[in-house]
């Protein structure tokens, strides 16, 4: 019974495949998976938009949307309808073709990443050996879409936004990749399915997720930061920094194309959250041994949504960085930290004494963090100040 609930979607797929001749079955299986992804993730997108609007509202002491449907849960539907019936404005001087395909490229690229994400036990569309690499390749092509949008709009703000976006995404791809390297080093595989398998065992009731090791925690935090930058989330939302450059690269987009950008952005967020979950939080593995009976796909989605909630929380709290600070942060803090983390992971791999490797690794990680933080703040002379008063 437990296995059935866990495998319900796999069984469903096989059942439907059974209706087709064997030569077609592989194709139908893939198509079913694609359809499932195309249904599930946009639904999650709607859910996260709603969560974001309500969560931000509550953080700001407002209600958030509460008019459409009970407690406002139909708000995303209303948003979608609104986006659909809005006039689609293309600037007179825009490069119409590129302007048109940019959102499509973005959406296609972000959806491709899901092909390799294991969303549950035996639930992965393509079980590739180098699936991690594939994910990053797909993630990198979103930059192209962003730049196409910014360039074709023929708007100065769009161009600035696109420049910012490309610079930022390329810079943060480096630490993002480097943080995943530690996982590959330890698990010894580029396959996301194998990485999850490696984390899915328990000591007592506690799981062996990578986040519970020193290098894993450091990697997790760095991955979190880099993923926020990679998906243009606050406090790294410079490319669309609405108070500076209106809306960045999608300033000139309206109606459904704007909705596609919006979709692409959120689905990209879901994707990177899925990757982070897979790498550090045990993917579809249950958090405690006694919770193994809950279907694996539930855990995967629960973890993604938790991740999204954290993004929302950050967005509700943080102001935005500046471009040069963002770059400095990427190259002078993130990159060295990931390199140190690589060393720590290597130590972890080759030191056998359990307590020694725990102690040494923790000391290196925390020491490096504190030292680099101090140095960075001092170099920029950033500190709280005291004020004098005149009578």
């Amino acid at each position, binding site marked *: 019974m437990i296995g059935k609930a866990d495998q319900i979607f796999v069984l469903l797929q096989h059942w439907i495949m059974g209706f087709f001749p064997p030569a077609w079955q592989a194709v139908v299986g893939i198509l079913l998976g694609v359809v499932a992804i195309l249904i599930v993730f946009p639904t999650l997108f709607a859910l996260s938009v709603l969560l974001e609007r309500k969560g931000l509202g509550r953080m*700001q002491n407002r209600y958030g949307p509460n008019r459409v449907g009970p407690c406002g849960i139909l708000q995303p539907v209303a948003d979608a309808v609104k986006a659909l019936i809005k006039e689609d404005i293309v600037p007179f001087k825009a490069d119409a073709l590129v302007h048109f395909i940019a959102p499509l490229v973005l959406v296609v690229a972000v959806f491709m990443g899901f092909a390799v994400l294991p969303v549950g036990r035996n639930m992965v569309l393509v079980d590739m050996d180098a699936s991690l690499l594939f994910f990053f390749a797909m993630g990198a092509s979103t930059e192209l879409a962003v730049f196409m949008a910014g360039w074709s709009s023929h708007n100065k703000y769009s161009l600035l936004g696109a420049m910012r976006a490309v610079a930022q995404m390329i810079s943060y791809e480096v630490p993002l990749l480097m943080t995943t390297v530690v996982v590959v080093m330890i698990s010894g595989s580029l396959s996301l399915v194998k990485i999850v398998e490696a984390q899915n065992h328990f000591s007592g009731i506690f799981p062996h997720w990578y986040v519970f090791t020193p290098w894993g925690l450091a990697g997790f935090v760095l991955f979190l930061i880099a993923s926020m930058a990679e998906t243009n989330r606050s406090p790294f939302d410079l490319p669309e920094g609405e108070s500076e450059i209106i809306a960045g690269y999608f300033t000139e987009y309206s109606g459904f194309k704007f909705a596609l950008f919006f979709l692409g952005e959120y689905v990209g967020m879901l994707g990177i959250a899925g990757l982070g979950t897979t790498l550090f939080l045990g993917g579809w593995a249950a958090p405690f041994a006694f919770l193994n009976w809950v279907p694996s796909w539930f855990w995967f989605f629960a973890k993604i949504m938790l991740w999204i909630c954290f993004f929302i929380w950050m967005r509700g709290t943080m102001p935005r960085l500046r471009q040069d600070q963002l770059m400095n942060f990427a190259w002078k803090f993130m990159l060295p930290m990931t390199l140190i983390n690589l060393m720590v992971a290597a130590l972890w791999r080759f030191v056998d004494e359990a307590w020694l490797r725990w102690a040494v690794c923790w000391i290196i990680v925390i020491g490096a963090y504190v030292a680099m933080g*101090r140095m960075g703040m001092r170099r920029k002379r950033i500190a709280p100040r005291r004020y004098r008063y005149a009578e």
Partner: protein
Amino acid sequence: MLGEGILKGLAETAKNFAGSYVSKERLTTVQYPEERIPTSESARVFPFLVYDGPDWEAGLRCVACQICEKECPPKCIYIEKSKDKKPDYVGKLQIYPARFDIDVSVCMSCQICVEVCPFEAIKMDVEFELSTDDRFGGLLRNRQHLAKSNEYYHQIHPTEASEVDARLGEEKAKLEAKAKAAAAAAAAKAAAPAAPAAKPAESTPKPAEGTDKQ
């Protein structure tokens, strides 16, 4: 340490997130059409004209002295004096406004007309839902729209209205006393033959100062 301030900030937003579910102090939003805050007693939106008694036309306190028209900063009031006189609520013959229009699309709710009115005839309303789809005609309110009863005035500004009533009552009492005295004098005079009939005391309280020609 790097990140300390960020964590502090995150704690603060988390506190507010939780607080907005439990504390009314934090979640101050009012869900407007369903929920309404009672308007405060001193609230002011647009002016209205007070009338006494049951009939609005007869009971208007306004005597078309046009002071408010002159003092109104955006000049949104338009008054035409009547040619004839008619008795007001105390039975005195008075000029009345043949036309009294306020263009609320121009009015800026400053309450200066109320302040300068020596007759307590114009007061501020609290009705603010005046939206209309007719930009010009719909916002031009004539004297019939503007006339509201003294009871209504009592309802929206109770303290102020009772003060006004007390003051008017005093004035009326004074007038009556004067009229009585005049009547008595007239009666005394009437004892002497060929005395003219006692004129009704012409005692509209004069505006405080002379009118300013601008």
